[in-house]
């Protein structure tokens, strides 16, 4: 049951066995909980209900997290204590600085562009006849994997050498050729390649921004709009004075949410360039250092850095939420 299953029937059996085992554990918990009643029994029931979740989180999230922080102060083999040296490396090594620079590009560009496109599109298709279809088109990339998105865009960026009868098969290079230019090795040219990868993330996240912002736009009270209309406000000031202030708290949430997601982007970089040609980002570098370069200490430090960078964004997010609820 805990071995590697290799044929399909074996795999299905193993899955069913796992689900049964899980159901049995839950059954035992509910059975015991059912035997307690009254006010004092309530406490026991609560702790029983929380037991599986707390146990899993303690073993699977809290302990590993603390362990990684501890490990980040050790060398590549994880045997001798080296203090903050790994963090020093991240902020001084030439390759690591490129990684940091790229991560900054990603986190600054993606949220703003994706949110702007999402907002504009949400306004443009609002109340139109094809609203739900138009939204689905933009939103679909959100449902597919970053890996598949990477493959789709790698094909868009595909390059064929510029020789007599060789035709371009990638859309971007074909457009360049049609416009009279020479084809470019798009994914190798730095720093252009990092921005081309960022486009993929924008392509995915714009749908998210659009969905959330569209709901916020629809929630603006009718009387405000009506009043502004009677005042003869034009489209641009309607957008600036009414739409934008009304959805502003939502915009902040969308920006920060996309920012956090972007900080941890890994699959796109790995699928499209493997982090080569100076396109690596922190999340990708974490994987490379840990598994390919066998530097556990540096890998751990990169993971911790990711964690540390998320915290201020989350705090900002919660603060602005509080402020918008208070007003």
């Amino acid at each position: 049951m805990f071995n590697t299953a290799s044929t399909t029937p074996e795999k299905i059996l193993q899955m069913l066995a796992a689900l049964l085992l899980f159901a049995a554990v839950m059954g035992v918990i509910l059975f015991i909980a059912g035997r307690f009643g009254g006010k004092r029994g309530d406490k026991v029931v609560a702790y029983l209900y929380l037991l599986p979740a707390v146990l899993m989180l303690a073993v699977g999230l809290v302990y590993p997290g603390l362990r990684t922080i501890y490990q980040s102060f050790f060398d590549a083999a994880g045997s001798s204590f080296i203090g903050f040296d790994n963090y020093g490396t991240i902020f001084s090594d030439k390759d690591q600085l490129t990684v940091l620079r790229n991560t900054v590009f990603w986190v600054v560009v993606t949220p703003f562009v994706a949110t702007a496109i999402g907002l504009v599109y949400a306004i443009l298709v609002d109340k139109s006849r094809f609203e739900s279809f138009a939204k689905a088109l933009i939103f679909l990339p959100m449902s597919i994997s970053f890996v598949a998105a990477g493959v789709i865009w790698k094909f868009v960026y595909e390059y064929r050498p510029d020789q007599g009868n060789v035709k371009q098969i990638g859309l971007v290079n074909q457009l360049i050729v049609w416009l009279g230019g020479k084809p470019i090795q798009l994914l190798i040219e730095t720093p252009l390649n990092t921005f081309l990868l960022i486009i993929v993330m924008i392509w995915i996240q714009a749908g998210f921004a659009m969905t959330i912002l569209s709901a916020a736009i629809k929630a603006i009270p009718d009387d405000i709009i009506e009043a502004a209309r009677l005042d003869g406000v034009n489209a641009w000031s309607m957008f600036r004075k009414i739409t934008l202030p009304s959805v502003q708290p939502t915009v902040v949430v969308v920006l920060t949410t996309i920012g956090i997601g972007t900080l941890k982007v890994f699959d796109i970089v790995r699928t499209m360039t493997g982090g080569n040609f100076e396109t690596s980002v922190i999340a990708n570098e974490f994987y490379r250092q840990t598994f390919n370069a066998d530097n556990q200490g540096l890998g751990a430090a990169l993971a911790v850095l990711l964690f540390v960078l998320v915290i201020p964004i989350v705090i900002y997010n919660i603060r602005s939420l509080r402020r918008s609820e208070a007003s």
Partner: protein
Amino acid sequence: MSTATPVTTPPLKAEKISTAGVAKKRLSSPWASIAAIVIAVLWTLPTFGLLVSSFRPEREIKTTGWWTFFSDPTTTFENYSKVFGEEGGVNLAAFFVNSLIICIPSVLIPMSIAALSAYAFAWIKFPGRNVLFLMIFALQIVPLQVTLIPLLKIFVSIDITGTFWTLWLSHATFALPLAIYLLHNFMREIPAGLIEAARVDGAGHVSIFFKVMLPLLTPALAAFGIFQFLWVWNDLLVALVFAGGGDEVAPITLQLANLSGTRGTAWHLLSAGAFVSIIVPVTVFLLLQRYFVRGLLAGSVKG
């Protein structure tokens, strides 16, 4: 991630004016329509190009652009039979099965565990309730990367590496903070009178959970279920660390990523492979879009 979005979806019955609607009218519709169409086309074209390519013969994909298909259409299903079959060395069918086997428990297990915990947090008073809830809420911000290596060492020490168990357990654990938070919020909105009435009738917490809560909870469970399903199906990182590359355990995303890395110019395989991998999430999404959007609005994006 992890924070409620301050938006509500209003009922869409009466045709009402909105700022956006006004803005659009004033912008004189043609320009607005053109801009919308341009964005829609830009967003669809990349996928469309690869989709068309997946039905073209290998030689043509590699020598001409997919747009030539419209002047010289030749179609084949050979790419799809190649990625599915074992002889091509791709064997996507096996990885497809793995993805399903990984996903089902990875959705059901955290869903039930979180429902129980959320119930305790929402409807039972016990010492330490607020502190514990806050701690679990805060765990949403922990990036997976921080947990992977120690978790891998735990899996090695209990000897379950290279099995589905590693993926089931880790996906289930990673999902819990978000699931508990979402379900808790939903349960708090159920009128207290319902629960009190059941208690007066002598029902214990077990039967209240099953008879009162669970039926009301379906939309929330569906929203979380779709979220988690898409997350697990589309995951690469967790699979890379725990599953190994063979076709015993690894999901379809992993094989597609490998294919892209080792045979990056085999576009006839990559195009068909990509579409095999996205057919399930896209179908789930299109069928259950309503719940998915509700989940997005209620909460968060984890990771």
